[in-house]
Structure formats: C-alpha cells, structure tokens
C-alpha cells in the first residue's frame, strides 16, 4: 500500500468530524470518495497533507508515518520543515482553484518549483511549461488567471500541483465550482492523468466520471468510510442501505 489511513480521528472544538476513518490507496490506484456534504471529505484531505492536525490515528505514506514521530516519551508532532517535506509528497487541487491572481499562468506553476524545489528560473519555467502541456494549456502560459474560464483555471491548478511531482494527488471536488459546460474538460484531464498511473484520491460527485475512472469507490459518511469497493459493486450491489440510498440520489441529479 502506498497510502494507509488507520482509525483517523479529527474534531473541530465541538464537532467530531472524523471518527475512526480507515482507507487504503495502492500505488497507481485511483480512489474516489463520495458522500454527503459535511461528512468530513475535505477534512480528510487536509489531514493528509497536514493543513489540519488530526487528533488520533495513523497515516502511513510509503511506510513513513505522516505528521508525527514516535519518541521515548510518546508521540511528537513533526517540526515545520519536516511537515513541509512530507507535504511535498501530496499534490492538492481545491474546489475553488486558488490560483495566485498576481502571477501569470506560467508563474503560478513555476513558483513552487523555484521557491520549494529551488530550481533556477529557466529550469522552473521549462518544467512548468511541460506541466501546462499535460493539461492542454501551454498556449495560455502568459495569461493572467482571472482572464481564464473556470475550467481553464482549474486545469492550471492541476498543472501547478503535478509540476511538483507528488506521490499522491488529492482532488477536493474539483468540478463543483464550475459551470456545467466546463466540467468535462477538467474531468478529461483528470482521467488522462489517472490512466498514466498517477496515484489519486478524488472527492467527486460526478457519478459517471467516478464509475469510469475509479479503481475503488469509498462512501464516506459521519466521519467513517461506510463501505468501499469496485465502482460496479458500489453502484449495482452495495451492501449497506445508506450507500444505496446516497448513490441513487446522486445518480438522479
């Protein structure tokens, strides 16, 4: 297993969000997460790349413990530079794109290569262009983010994440903020990346896309994975009544 999540717990002051969540992602696998709003999907992704600190549980990436270290005195949070090093193993694509509006499209992708990987300007720009080519937006490299359509912005955001060459890509509802006619271009890019063998964890409610791209579908509700399995099994013969209900509903939307 490339990524193992065991018994993960997370609370925000009063609200218990993750309640013993377990989930595995194999190398080159595409795992899709579906589930009702407020179920903890975004929180899970934020725990994985440590934008949020979990309360309990184990996350292993390539066998390495994420976020904490075992010492003689017990568990200890990692230091900031160690957190950053682990975070680089994950690429994240947000629902709201979050492109940097003060930087050109090319610079949006190149800035991480320059500042985080320390590449010189030329090398960073070359690699950034390669990443843009993968999402089909090389021609837009000198545009400003705000002059692009939502679908194009999200593709730039994908390029920005994959340019860092992470081990696992995390997508948090990548098409939820898009107009319906722009959804397909983004899903198309993600499908293409999935077929190149990139390891991905995708939160999405586009059921046809999920059926098409997922090796495994997880139904997440109330902070736990209620059920998981192949897309075919999840859609056609789910074991849990809740899974069946939820999938019936999103399929008819």
């Amino acid at each position, binding site marked *: 297993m490339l990524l193992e999540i065991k018994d993960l717990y997370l609370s925000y002051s009063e609200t218990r969000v993750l309640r013993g969540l377990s989930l595995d992602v194999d190398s080159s696998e595409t795992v899709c997460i579906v589930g009702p709003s407020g179920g903890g999907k975004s929180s899970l992704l934020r725990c994985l790349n440590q934008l949020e600190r979990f309360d309990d549980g184990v996350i292993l990436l390539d066998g390495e413990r994420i976020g904490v270290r075992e010492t003689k005195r017990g568990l200890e949070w990692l230091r900031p530079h160690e957190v950053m090093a682990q975070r680089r193993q994950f690429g994240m694509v947000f629902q709201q794109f979050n*492109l940097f509006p003060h930087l050109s499209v090319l610079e949006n992708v190149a800035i991480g290569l320059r500042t985080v990987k320390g590449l010189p300007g030329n090398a960073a720009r070359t690699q950034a262009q390669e990443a843009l080519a993968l999402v089909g937006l090389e021609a837009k490299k000198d545009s400003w983010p*705000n002059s692009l359509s939502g679908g194009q912005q999200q593709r730039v955001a994908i390029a*920005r994440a994959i340019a860092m060459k992470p081990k696992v890509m995390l997508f948090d509802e990548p098409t939820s903020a898009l107009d319906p006619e722009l959804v397909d271009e983004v899903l198309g890019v993600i499908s293409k990346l999935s077929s190149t063998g990139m390891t991905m964890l995708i939160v999405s409610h586009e059921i046809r896309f999920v059926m098409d791209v997922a090796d495994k579908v997880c139904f997440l509700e109330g902070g736990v994975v209620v059920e998981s399995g192949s897309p075919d099994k999840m859609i056609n013969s789910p074991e849990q009544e809740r899974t069946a209900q939820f999938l019936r509903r999103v399929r008819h939307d």
Partner: protein
Amino acid sequence: MSSLLDVARRRRVVRRRGVPLGPSGLKLGAPVGTIREPPQPMQYVLGGVVIVLVALATIRLAGDRHIGWSAFPNYFFSKPLLQGVETTLELALICQVVAVVIGAGVAAARVSRSPVVATLGDLYTWIFRSVPLLVQLIFWFNIALLFPSIGISLPGLGSLWSVPTNSVISGFVAALLGLALHEGAFMAEIIRGGILSVPAGQKMAALAIGMSNRQASRYVIRPQVLRVTIPAMGNQFVGLLKATALVSVIGGGDLLTRAQYIYSQNFQVVGLLMVVTVWYLLLVSVASLAQRAIERHFSNDRRLLAQPATQAATPSLAIPAEV
C-alpha cells in the same frame, strides 16, 4: 468651466448627411460620438455666473493691501521658507516610510495566532489612533519632564551610557516621533485590511505546494496586500503632508514654523500665511498627482480586475495569514 467647454464642443459636432435610416427611424452606421446631448441652456447661465464671481473675487483680492502681496517676491523663495519646505518634505517622507514599517509590524501582530502578540498590536493601534496628533506631538516634545535622561544601564554595572533627554528630543525629533507613531497606527489598519482581503485559500494553496509560512507570505500574501493597500497609502501620504503643519506648535522647523517666526518679527501675518498656503497647495498637488498616477497604475492592473467570485467565497479556515 469644463462643462462649458464640453457643451461648446458638443455643439460643434456636425451631423453627417446621407447616413441610412434603420427601421426605428434612427440613423444606422453613424460614426461613434455623433449623437448629441440635448441642449442645456442652464449650463451657460451657471458658467456665466461663476466667471463673474471669480473675476470679482480676483479683483477684490488683488487690490487688497491687507493681504500684502509684496510678501510673495520677498519670501516665497527666501532661504528660511525653502528650508521649511525641505523640513516639511523630510518629515512627511521619513514618517511615511517609518509608518509603513510600523504598520506592517503592528498589522502582522494583530492577525497573529498568539493572543499576547495580537493584544499588543491592538493596544498600539488603540492608543496611537485615539490620542489626537497634536497632543502626541506636545507630549513627545515634553518627554524630558517624564524621563529627564535616557541611557543604557545594566543591573550590577550601573549606568553604561546616558544623555539628557532634552539634548536628543529636538523639535524635529519630537515631530518625527509623534507623526510616525500616529501614522503607523493608521497604516496598521490599512495593511490589516489588506491582509484580511486576501482569501484564506491563497495561503492554503501556497502551503499545499510545499511553501513554508515565510515563503507563502513573501511570494503569495504580501504582493497581494501591497497591490490593494498602495492607493490607500498614497492617500495617507497626502494627509501626512498637511499634518506636518501641526508640528509648528513645538517648533518643528517646518514651513509653517519658519513663516510664523518671520511674521512674529515683521507682522506681515496674512502675507506670509498666503505664501505658506501657496506652498502647501503646490506640495499637496504634486503629491496628489503622484497618488493619482499610482492609483491608475494599480487599478489598470489586470491581475486585480474581476477577481472571480469563487475565490472570494473560499471558506475561511483556521490558518491566519502572516505578512
């Protein structure tokens, strides 16, 4: 006046003949700008009245011997007043720079995660924004009454270095302190507003590609804060330039201080005040023009235009921005 010119220009527009009519009777294909406003006769009346009033006022003032126009050739470029202009500009420029530095620090403190640091920032803003500038200036000028000497002393070693406060706090230094500390509180507010205007998703995105907090501030947050705050900072500078006149009460050596010194000896009060007034008009006009240019530069910045609504709607997470 400009509306008078506008009306005249529009009247001069000649309609082209032979342009085809559309179904509604409007001419099709008329060159842009050939459709006129309806005539506005009141504009001529108003313009006439204004011209007459301005002419009367000019005649009245030009012939007034109380104003003492003779002060202009004698004093406008006189050495003391030019020194005053220099001091005024120095005060405004130095204070602006110091205030931006203070403001950035205080603003960063106020959005800090640490409650102690945030409270210190709040306290600074509260005090220096609440006490009138005039009071602060007089206070700094008289600080020697509170601390007769300043210096460094270590417990056990006694006093290492010490000077009388009055030898350090001249009118100019007191003016610098008062203006910069006061201005710093306002800058802090402007910069804090700028920081809060950057969506939380920006910092998350920066961290997610592996940047440190410091890198996220430097490459992502700070440039965006600068872009939104620079016009407001320009506006503050114009205000600061005028506020320097207050330092005349503590003999700050600025334009007004020097003029007051001269008219206390020759009693050409109105004449020198007029000279000072024209100087301020000049200085503030130049500053305003510069401010306008800077504002235009930043408002034309396409990167700032049409921030997509989706970015502003990013839910705020418990990750405060740092500058």
